[in-house]
C-alpha cells in the first residue's frame, strides 16, 4: 500500500502498565532521571504531581487562553461602544447604520458600567473557545487512531491501570534498556509497540 510515504509499521515506543498511581510516579521519575525526554503517561484519574515529575513545561494553552480572554474583553466592550455611538464623542464619524445611539433611561451614551457584564461574558466565551479549540488543535484531535492502542494491556488505561510510554523518537531510546528499567520499577506489563500499517 502506498500513500506517497512510507507507512510500514515502525517502532512507536515501549509501554509499561502499573497497578498504582504511586508506582507510575516513581517509574516516571526513574525514566526522567535516566535521561529520557520523549515520554507520555496515561491514567484513568488525575495523578497529583505527575506533570511536575515529567517536567511538563508546555504553556501554549495558557497563552492561548489569555489571548482568547483579552480578545473577548476588547470585542465585547468594542461592540457595545462602537455600535452605541461612543466614537462620535472622540470625533470619529461612523455611517449611521452602525450607530444605535439611543438614550436609554437617561444614561450616558458610553455607559461603561452597563457594558461590563457583556464584556465579561465575551471574555469567558472566547476564553472557553480558545481553551477547547486550542486543546483539540494541540492534541491533534479528532484522532481516530493512535499507535498506543496497539498495546495489548492498554484497554485498561481508562479503567484501573496506569501507563507510561517512552517513545521511539527519543534520541536515547533503546527498547531493551527501557524494558528492564520498567521491570525494575515494578511494571505489570511491558510491551514494545509498533505503529499501524497505513498510519
Amino acid at each position, binding site marked *: 500500500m502506498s500513500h506517497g510515504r512510507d507507512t510500514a509499521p515502525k517502532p512507536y515506543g515501549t509501554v509499561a502498565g502499573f497497578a498504582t498511581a504511586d508506582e507510575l510516579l516513581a517509574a516516571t521519575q526513574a525514566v526522567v532521571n535516566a535521561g529520557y525526554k520523549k515520554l507520555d503517561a496515561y491514567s484513568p484519574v488525575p495523578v497529583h*504531581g505527575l506533570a511536575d515529575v515529567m517536567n511538563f513545561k508546555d504553556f501554549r494553552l495558557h497563552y492561548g487562553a489569555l489571548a482568547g480572554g483579552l480578545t473577548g474583553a476588547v470585542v465585547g466592550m468594542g461592540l457595545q461602544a462602537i455600535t452605541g455611538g461612543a466614537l462620535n464623542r472622540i470625533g470619529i464619524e461612523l455611517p449611521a447604520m452602525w450607530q444605535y445611539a439611543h438614550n436609554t*433611561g437617561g*444614561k450616558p451614551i458610553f455607559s461603561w*458600567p452597563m457594558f*461590563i*457584564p457583556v464584556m465579561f461574558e465575551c471574555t469567558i466565551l472566547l476564553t472557553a473557545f480558545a481553551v477547547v479549540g486550542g486543546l483539540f488543535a494541540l492534541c491533534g484531535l479528532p484522532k481516530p487512531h493512535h499507535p498506543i492502542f496497539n498495546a495489548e494491556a492498554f484497554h485498561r488505561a481508562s479503567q484501573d491501570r496506569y501507563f507510561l510510554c517512552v517513545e521511539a523518537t527519543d534520541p536515547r531510546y533503546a527498547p531493551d534498556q527501557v524494558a528492564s528499567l520498567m521491570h525494575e520499577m515494578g511494571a505489570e506489563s511491558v510491551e514494545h509497540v509498533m505503529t499501524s500499517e497505513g498510519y
Partner: protein
Amino acid sequence: MSDTETTMHESAPKNTIGTNYSILGVLLLLVGGGLFAATGMGAGMENMLRSYLYGYMFWSGMTIGCFGLMLLHHTIRARWSRPVLRIWESACSPLMLVIQAVAFLPIAMNLKLIYKWMKPEVVAVDKILQNKAFYLNPTVFYITTFGFFAFMIFWSYQLQALQRKEDATGDKSYADKRAVWAPPGLLFFVLLLNFFYTSVLMSLDAHWFSTIYGVWLMVGFALAGLAFTGMTVGTQHKRAPFVGIINEKFTYDIGVLTLAFTLLWAYFTFSQFLITWSGNLPEFTVWFVDRSVQPYSTLAGMGMFAQFLIPFIVLLQPASRRNPAVFAALGGWVFSVRMFDFYYVVVPSLHLTSPNALTLIGGLFAMGGLWLLVFALQYKSRPELVNGSDYQLAANHG
C-alpha cells in the same frame, strides 16, 4: 516527617509571630490611642464614638473573617489549611470575642449619639423610619449584636475545645465531631452576620438598604483574614515550625482561595453598584452620591485597581502563587488596602460633623493594637501546629 525534615525543623530559628505582634500591638495601641485622644477630644463625644466605630468594626471584622475561615476549615475537614488553623483560632478565640463584646459596649450604650433612628424628633417626621421602627429599635439592636457575639463565643469555644482534645489525645475521631458542629455553625454564622451588619453599619444610613451588604462585608473580611494569614506565615516560612510546611504547595492553595475571594469581592462590589446605577432610584443612589466626593471617589477608583486588578493579575500566575515571599508581600498589600476600602464603605455613612481622618486612623490603630496584642497572647499560649504527625503527607499530596 523524614530525618532531613526533622533536622531542618530543629535547626531553624523559632518563629517570631508572637513577639512581633506583641510589640507592634503595644506600639499601635499607644500611638493610635494617643492620636485618637489628642485629635478627638475637642470634636465632641458624637464624633469620637462614630470614629471609634470605624476602627472597631474593621478589627471585629478580622475576627469574624477568621471565624468564618475556621468554620469552613472544619466543615470541609480541610487539610491544606491545618498549618494556619492556629492563626484563625487565635483571631477568633473565645477570649478575643469576649474582649470585642466588651469593646462594643461604648457603642451599644450610646446609640442615641450614633444612629439617627434613635432620635424621636427625626423619626416623628420620617415616614420611612416609622415603617422601619419594628427593626430599627434598641431591643432588636441588642439582640442582633450581642446574640451574634454569644453565638460566636459558644461555637468558637466548642470547636476549639474539640481541637485541643484532639491535639492532646491524638484521637482523629474528634475531626468528625467538629464536622458535626461546623456546618450548622456556618449556616447560622452567615444568617446572624447579616443581622449584625444590618444593625450596626447599614442602619447608619437608615433609608438606604442593600441585600448583599452583610455577605459583601463578610467576603471582604474573609479576604482580609486570608491576606493577614498569608502575610504572617509567608514571612516566617524559613522559621520553625513552618519550615517545609509553608511551602509552595501551601501558598498555591491559599493563593487559589485568595483569588476566589478577590473575584467574589469584586463581583459583589461591582454588581451592587451596577444594580443601583441602572435602577437609578433616589433612595439607593444616595449611598453612592455620598461617596462621589473626595476623598471617597479616589478611594473607589483605588479599590478597583489595588483591591481587584493588581491581586487578580498577581494571583492569576501560578509562579507567584508558588512563592511564599511573593504571597507574603501580596498579603500585606491586600490587608492594607482592605483598611482603605473599609474606610470608603463606612466613613461616609458616619456623617461626622467635623470629620478628621487622624481620629479615624487613631481609632483604627488603637483597636488594631489591642487586637494584635490579644492575638499574640492567644497565639503564644498554644502550640503553633495542630497535631502534626502527617504534615509531610499533606505537604506532598495536599
